[in-house]
């Protein structure tokens, strides 16, 4: 077991009390182990700061968008509360269950991308093999095969789609978006699924800019009658 593995076991709480004690004693004697522990803690802190920076971008919207809880006068609040109660009861009874778009995108991936259709004839062996791996749940292997094919066939729209879907399934949304963007930008395709899949990937990635970008893509899908039009229209509430 190398130093990082030992350190990981210690901080993950996977050691017995005796092992922990021995580990702490070893830290004072073994500078390599102490350095691994320091690296581990510093990396966790660095990762946390990265996460915090991303969260701050997402959370810290301008204050004027947020209703103040302290400024409503009691009279206004009381009157509004009565009206709100009546509206609220009606709304509660009649409210449609509208899931968030990101949830719809997750459900779409689960329902529609669980397996890929095996195509007979015309599809190169490498892609067929990749589809087979995907359908058996070996996504990493499938990804390798699709990427291998793309090295020499960079403009193959089917391969771009398959590689993008596999990245989506692997949770590698950045890569999925890049591949679907390449697919979406291909001119002359009779039926281009790139924009719809890119919207799905963005909704799953859920960065601050993704919601707006996904909305633009979904509008494009509807306007240009591209694959995914029915889902896009529903998600846009049309």
């Amino acid at each position: 077991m190398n130093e990082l593995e030992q350190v990981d076991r210690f901080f993950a709480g996977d050691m017995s009390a005796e092992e922990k004690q021995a580990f702490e004693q070893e830290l004072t004697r073994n500078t390599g182990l102490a350095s691994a522990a320091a690296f581990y803690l510093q990396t966790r802190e660095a990762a946390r700061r990265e996460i915090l920076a991303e969260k701050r971008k997402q959370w810290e919207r301008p204050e004027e968008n947020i209703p103040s809880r302290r400024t409503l006068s009691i009279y206004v609040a009381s009157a509004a509360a009565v009206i709100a109660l009546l509206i609220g009861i009606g709304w509660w009874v009649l409210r449609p269950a509208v899931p968030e778009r990101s949830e719809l995108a997750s459900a779409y991936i689960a329902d529609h991308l669980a397996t890929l259709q095996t195509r007979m004839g015309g599809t190169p062996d490498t892609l067929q093999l990749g589809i087979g791996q995907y359908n058996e749940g070996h996504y990493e292997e499938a990804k390798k095969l699709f990427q291998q094919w793309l090295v020499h066939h960079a403009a193959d729209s089917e391969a771009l789609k398959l590689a993008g879907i596999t990245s989506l399934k692997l949770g590698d949304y950045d890569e999925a978006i890049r591949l679907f963007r390449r697919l979406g930008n291909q001119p002359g395709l009779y039926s281009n699924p790139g924009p719809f899949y890119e919207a799905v990937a963005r909704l799953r990635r859920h960065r601050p800019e993704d919601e707006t970008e996904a909305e633009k893509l979904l509008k494009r899908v509807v306007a240009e009658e591209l694959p995914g039009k029915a889902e896009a229209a529903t998600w846009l509430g049309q």
Partner: protein
Amino acid sequence: MIFLKRSVSDADLVAGIRAGGVQRRSSENRLYDHYRYLIREATFKHKLLPEECASAYSDAVLTVIEHIASGRFEGRSGLKTYLYQIFSNKCVDLVRKNSTNRESIHDVLPLDNVFVADDARNAVQHLITEGDIEELRKKLTEIGDKCRQMVLAWGEGYSDEEIASSMGYQTPAVAKTSRLRCLERLRNLYAELKRPL
């Protein structure tokens, strides 16, 4: 339409954060928004700039999320009380930092509750510096998107089981091996940085 918003209970928020995935993200955002007004109060109370308070509040919310996810928050106090306490401590730290205008090395990453033995804590503590943490942040961009994503998820407190499920690994053990491999890759880059010229 504040009046049409369904009130959020502590139990809903805690359950949502512990559920993981999309529900966790949504509950995190709701938690942040629900007590956001504390920022304004702290600005007056601690005489800090609004952006300083906003930063401390985000940090406090992230800490509370980590404590909820790891089970460290046991629900013995209300969520608001718990968050308020952590947020206040962060504001006080900030006031202290502003007044002394320096950062003590020991404040970079306090290890008081990490080790039992003082000797072990001291052996590691003196190796931790603010500069190294910031260098590691930069190096995180050099280990590949997938590794970075995995290390960030780990830094956010996700378990190997959750990482396996969200990133498509077959088992938590496979996710753990990949995570440690990513950390090793980062450590090699970090070692190159520390190597004397």
